[in-house]
């Protein structure tokens, strides 16, 4: 399933908006697109409001982003994660690596406070 | 000779008396009280008897728990010389049931499952059913062990009729349509191809068989067997009626009754000896004369034997009486029983009855293969059938002879160390001999086990003596442990004394002249009947399918066999699936409704406790 990725910045923090399904097929592309963004700025917000499905491959992309950010003591925040996805992440132990917020603004404030 | 100083193997059958866990050994007492100490080895393995098409019942894990006192067991052992004595070590064991006094063959549906499996195997072998339809054009008398078709293309009346009997009995127990179809089509085929309607004499006799070659059929009027050559043996005419009669009990087809009555007229007119009683065993194929010089060739002139007198009852006559209830057939039965009781016993000379006679009933001890020899199975067949006839024509002499045979036979005709029954033995002991000599071999034939099983089951069912239960169980347990062919289906025809199947020469065939699916299915049908109805007092359901024109007065008689009066009641009837009430509970008969097509009848018989 194809996914769309748009990159923008809000108050000097990179915001990546993703739409569609993140699975074994689309995950590598997404990763290739986002990883370089971490070069300039170690923190990142992922706006996942219109992500309808995330498979384990998708979760692993997020975890890789987290690891990359950590290695530059940056942080990754997730915004607008669907309930089912958040639940799956919790149950498989992925959720606790990320700051989670409902909207991009809230994600922004949590990032700035840390 | 000192104790055998070499190893040999054998099967020992008996009852555990005690188990020594530490020494990993157990003591066994055989049927006649011999003691054996048997040692278990790390590689000893064991199973519980399993039925046809049932999975292998390994119980190696529980050998220790199963060897409790009283447990019946078959132990195939190796005998080693050791310290001047013999050490017996078990290699493989078979338990007839999971506990002392427990026998798988006494489970209510054991024999019903077995008859279904045997009948299905024969449908598969003979007609490649269900892939092809049942067509008796393809019937072969000679069936290879695995049921394949080999050799010539002979169709014998006798084996077709016997298989029809098996199919009809299977239908009566299971209600499966394919079995009834096989029985009815077989009966039609016999009438169309094997029946000789003698318009001059207005009676019927049956060809020995046909040799199909191309589009023509070579009719075989006289028997093709050495000892009945160039004659019409009564034995074959009798068994030609076995299948059709059992089919008649299901459908009441008047054409079958007509053929039976016309054949009985043949017996009365040409085979019967009205002056000196009984029936001649052979008649001349052309003049139909029992005293014809032509019969001298087979030494069959004016001879009488067990078959011509005793085979009527089990082959067709009892089933004919069961289907019709007519007194003339009961009289005929009593007549054969009286003849046996009068002429067959010869206890001053032998524990076995005399089987061959001249016209004046003097003993013929020089005939063909028989000479002065005894067929163990015939003695037991007499005991079994006398008890059946006794239930409609009560006669103390019948019971006395039956019991005398039942008491004498174990010592001289059965294998008290391994269980199972022997084949043909010399009737008298030569000076110094302690065991009646086996004429050819000490193997055990499947049909002789049947006679022993049915004799002791009916004696236990009617008289309830513990001794009969013991011999009945031992014979049945041996049969179910060693005669069932779990690889290809059906039963082995011969096993060695120790129970291993004997598959050489013509014993390999599953369908030779007297075998096909007769004795094995009759055993299932009557064991189920006697064990459930007479011994364990369990209800049973039987299936019939009377035709619209079936049975005079539309009376369907449902007694499965001749049972002691009042021992069983007809408690429930279903016709085409709906409960039906017009039936006589004591008389075991149903007043059938008028109908334009066949009706499916289910009758449930319940023993009176």
């Amino acid at each position: 399933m194809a996914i769309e990725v748009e990159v923008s910045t809000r108050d000097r923090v990179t915001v990546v908006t993703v739409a569609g399904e993140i699975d074994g097929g689309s995950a590598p592309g997404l990763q290739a697109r986002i990883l370089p963004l971490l070069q300039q700025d170690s923190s990142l917000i992922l706006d996942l409001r219109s992500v309808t499905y995330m498979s384990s491959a998708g979760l692993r992309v997020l975890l890789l982003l987290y690891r990359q950010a950590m290695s530059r003591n940056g942080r990754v925040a997730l915004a607008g994660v669907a309930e089912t996805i958040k639940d799956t992440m919790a149950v498989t132990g992925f959720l606790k690596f990320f700051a989670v917020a409902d909207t991009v603004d809230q994600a922004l404030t949590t990032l700035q406070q840390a | 000779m000192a104790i055998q100083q070499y190893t040999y193997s054998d099967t020992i059958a008996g009852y555990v008396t005690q188990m020594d866990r530490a020494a990993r050994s157990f003591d066994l007492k055989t049927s006649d009280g011999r003691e054996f100490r048997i040692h278990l080895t790390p590689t000893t393995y064991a199973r519980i008897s399993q039925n046809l098409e049932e999975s292998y019942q390994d119980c190696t894990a529980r050998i220790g728990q199963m060897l409790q006192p009283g447990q019946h067991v078959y132990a195939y052992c190796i005998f080693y010389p050791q310290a001047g004595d013999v050490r017996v070590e078990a290699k493989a064991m078979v338990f007839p049931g999971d506990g002392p006094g427990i026998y798988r063959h006494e489970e209510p549906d054991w024999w019903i499952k077995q008859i279904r499996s045997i009948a299905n195997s024969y449908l598969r072998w003979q007609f490649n059913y269900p892939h092809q339809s049942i067509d008796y054009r393809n019937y072969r008398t000679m069936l290879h062990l695995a049921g394949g078709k080999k050799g010539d293309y002979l169709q014998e009346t006798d084996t077709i009729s016997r298989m029809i009997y098996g199919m009809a009995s299977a239908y009566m127990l299971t209600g499966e349509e394919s079995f009834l179809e096989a029985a009815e089509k077989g009966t039609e085929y016999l009438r169309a191809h094997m029946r000789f309607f003698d318009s001059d004499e207005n009676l019927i006799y049956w060809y020995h068989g046909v040799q199909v070659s191309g589009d023509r059929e070579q009719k075989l009027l006289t028997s093709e067997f050495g000892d009945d050559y160039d004659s019409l043996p009564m034995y074959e005419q009798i068994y030609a009626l076995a299948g059709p009669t059992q089919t008649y009990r299901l459908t009441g087809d008047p054409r079958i009754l007509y053929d039976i009555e016309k054949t009985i007229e043949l017996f009365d007119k040409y085979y019967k000896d009205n002056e000196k009683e009984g029936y001649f065993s052979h008649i001349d194929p052309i003049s139909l004369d029992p005293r014809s010089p032509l019969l001298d060739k087979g030494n069959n002139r004016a001879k009488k034997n067990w078959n011509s007198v005793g085979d009527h009852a089990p082959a067709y006559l009892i089933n004919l009486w069961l289907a019709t209830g007519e007194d003339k057939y009961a009289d005929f039965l009593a007549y054969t029983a009286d003849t046996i009781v009068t002429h067959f016993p010869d206890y001053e000379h032998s524990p076995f009855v005399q089987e061959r006679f001249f016209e004046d009933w003097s003993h013929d001890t020089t005939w063909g293969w028989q000479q002065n020899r005894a067929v163990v199975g015939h003695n037991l067949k007499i005991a079994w059938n006398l008890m059946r006839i006794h239930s409609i024509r009560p006669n103390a002499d019948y019971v006395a002879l039956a019991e005398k045979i039942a008491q004498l036979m174990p010592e001289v005709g059965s294998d008290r160390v391994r269980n199972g029954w022997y084949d043909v033995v010399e009737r008298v002991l030569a000076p110094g001999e302690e065991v009646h000599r086996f004429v050819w071999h000490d193997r055990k034939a499947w049909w002789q086990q049947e006679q022993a099983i049915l004799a002791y089951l009916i004696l236990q069912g009617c008289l309830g003596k513990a001794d009969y239960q013991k011999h009945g169980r031992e014979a049945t347990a041996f049969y179910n442990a060693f005669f069932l062919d779990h690889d290809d289906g059906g039963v082995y025809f011969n096993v060695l004394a120790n129970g291993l199947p004997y598959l050489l020469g013509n014993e390999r065939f599953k369908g030779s002249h007297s075998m096909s699916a007769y004795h094995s299915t009759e055993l299932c049908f009557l064991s189920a009947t006697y064990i459930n109805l007479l011994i364990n007092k369990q209800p049973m359901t039987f299936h019939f399918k009377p035709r619209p024109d079936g049975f005079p007065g539309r009376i369907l008689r449902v007694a499965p066999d001749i049972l002691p009066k009042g021992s069983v009641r007809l408690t429930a009837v279903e016709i085409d699936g709906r409960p039906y009430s017009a039936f006589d509970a004591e008389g075991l008969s149903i007043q059938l409704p008028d109908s334009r097509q066949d009706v499916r009848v289910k009758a449930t018989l319940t023993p009176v406790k």
Partner: protein
Amino acid sequence: MAFSANLEMVDSEARITLEGELDAAVADQFRQTVEHAAQEKPQKLVLFMDKLQFMASAGLRVLVFAKQRMGRDVAIYVIGATGPVLNTMQMSGFHQAVYLQESYP
């Protein structure tokens, strides 16, 4: 009408012409004729029955018994059998074992 059965061998073919009434009494005579034919080891047995008024089942048994003794590969032709004779053969199923023809060859 008296019964007669005479045998004629034409190379490997045995031909028997039957006349009159073949009842039980003469069945034995007929049997001997057929046995003589059998001793010649014919490949074919041809029976001319157009002049045969009656055949008892005993006679028929002679035929069946003879055919059985002569073996499977000997073919029997019955020529001109009519009325009761044909009926006797059909009632006993023997018609399935022979070739029935109006005339021969």
